[in-house]
């Protein structure tokens, strides 16, 4: 397989797929909300943002939930078509799933359907009820997902241990200190303080507080691990031509994407301190013609600090080996030169399972649409979105830019 291939569409193509609307519900512990209710409400929020009604949608893509196989089946078997009044109207409703990188792949899939003409307007829906689920049940489930049952399950591996293996290797390879790693969490919290939808809105955090929390899996402290949350996000994509016809001048397009599946089993990753980010970034940059200097904001999967520090290095946003110290310098903070995870990320907005990556994608689109309110990054034109699934099996990179009249 060649490492480079061009997109068959560009910013001038009538069938260029664009984001036109986003929706989000607050993430955290919301026992008084429910799964189908949240999906319905978030769908309507995204459609309203796109100045649409359900009947404008011909295809629904579902992002999976992990809290319940029964709820998952509702998604797979088109329940949302019925809930949104689209019976007999909707062409297709189906699920796409690659764990934490699902949102990147859902964007690719929606783009392909739109560009090829198989779909005109795609609604992508996500809801997770992790925050209200039974914690022990979720821990058990997370100790079985993305871990080979024959070879690694007998060791007693689980998700925090996977994050710890990555963080330990990263710290060793880059000589990063515990305080450097904790600084990533503090940057994310600063952003969450600007996001009323974030789980940790209104709860400041310091490096000292992170480092004084108990060690759960060396070198990870409790406050360096993501908290399971309820949450829901949605977005709408259509063709540039359809957006224009509907008078939607402010849109976001995909300038290119790249990906790299670097392992399935964490024990088979060639370099746990780097993962697949550099290869994914190279592919995305080659497809788009962008380089690191073109990027103004970043929204990257951040279940553990080292996943994010290895990503900013692989993307070339900082010098190799300097990711954690780069965060500690404040460059990714509100007001910094390279704002990162401006919703607070999964570590501070809440880990909504597969939805954590979706929330980051939607935040990137929100910033480029200029709808981020108090945390809006002035004149943001270009954003990188990074996702990864399972035991960080893949690195997925989307390069997004403003399109329509807002583009410069």
């Amino acid at each position: 397989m060649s490492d480079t291939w061009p997109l068959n569409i560009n910013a001038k193509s009538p069938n260029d797929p664009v984001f036109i609307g986003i929706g989000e519900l607050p993430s955290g512990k919301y026992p008084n909300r429910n799964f189908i209710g949240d999906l319905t409400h978030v769908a309507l929020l995204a459609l309203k943002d796109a100045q649409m009604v359900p009947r404008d949608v011909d295809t629904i893509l579902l992002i999976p939930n992990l809290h319940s196989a029964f709820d998952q089946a509702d998604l797979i078997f088109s329940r949302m078509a019925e809930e949104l009044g689209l019976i007999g109207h909707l062409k297709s409703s189906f699920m796409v799933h690659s764990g934490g990188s699902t949102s990147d792949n859902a964007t690719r899939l929606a783009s392909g359907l739109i560009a090829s003409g198989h779909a005109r307007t795609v609604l992508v829906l996500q809801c997770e009820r992790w925050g209200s689920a039974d914690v022990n049940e979720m821990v058990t489930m997370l100790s079985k997902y993305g871990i080979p049952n024959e070879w690694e399950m007998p060791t007693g591996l689980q998700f925090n241990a996977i994050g710890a293996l990555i963080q330990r290797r990263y710290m060793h390879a880059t000589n990063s200190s515990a305080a450097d790693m904790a600084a990533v969490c503090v940057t994310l919290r600063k952003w969450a303080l600007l996001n009323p939808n974030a789980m940790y809105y209104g709860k400041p955090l310091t490096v000292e507080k992170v480092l004084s929390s108990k060690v759960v899996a060396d070198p990870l402290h409790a406050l360096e691990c993501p908290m399971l949350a309820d949450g829901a996000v949605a977005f709408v994509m259509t063709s540039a031509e359809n957006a224009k016809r509907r008078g939607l001048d402010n849109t976001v397009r995909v300038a290119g994407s790249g990906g790299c599946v670097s392992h399935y089993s964490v024990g088979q990753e060639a370099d746990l301190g780097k993962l697949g980010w550099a290869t994914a970034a190279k592919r995305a940059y080659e497809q788009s013609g962008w380089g690191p200097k073109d990027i103004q904001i970043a929204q990257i999967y951040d279940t553990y600090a080292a996943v994010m520090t290895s990503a900013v290095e692989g993307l070339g946003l900082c010098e190799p080996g300097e990711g954690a110290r780069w965060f500690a310098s404040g460059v990714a903070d509100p007001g910094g030169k390279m704002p990162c995870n401006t919703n607070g990320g999964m570590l501070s907005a809440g880990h909504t399972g597969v939805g954590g990556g979706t929330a980051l994608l939607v935040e990137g689109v929100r910033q480029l649409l200029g709808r981020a309110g108090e945390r809006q990054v002035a004149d943001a034109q270009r954003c990188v979105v990074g996702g990864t699934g399972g035991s960080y099996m893949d690195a997925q990179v989307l390069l997004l830019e403003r399109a329509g009249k807002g583009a410069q």
Partner: protein
Amino acid sequence: MSVNPIRDEFRAALARGELLVQKCNDCGKLNMYPRHACPHCQSLSLGWQQVRGRGVLHSYTVLRVGAPEGFDQDLPYALGVVKLEDGVQMLGRLVPDAQGNWDHYRCDQTVEFQPVPPEQKTPRACAWFTATSL
């Protein structure tokens, strides 16, 4: 549990104190984890090679809370990714020192497969590695 001779042969060897790595009978390359067809040449003729289990510790962690169901009695325990000198890699458990600590482990140090696993309340079908005394 489904029938899986590859898994069963690997685990039977561990129980005997041997570490096996899959070897393709056609191209001769080693595969870890063991596969159902050789990922190098797609051959279905696959066998085993016993290895000493010496390698480099790529990364490790000590899990202190939040063990998976059925592993609570093992806490705390250490996991490590070992790059074997044979050119393949795997996840295993790390043997603690006499005081029950893992402070003597470092990334990139040499470790070795321990044929007789340390005493455990529940024996696990995984490889154990220990720091080599140089």
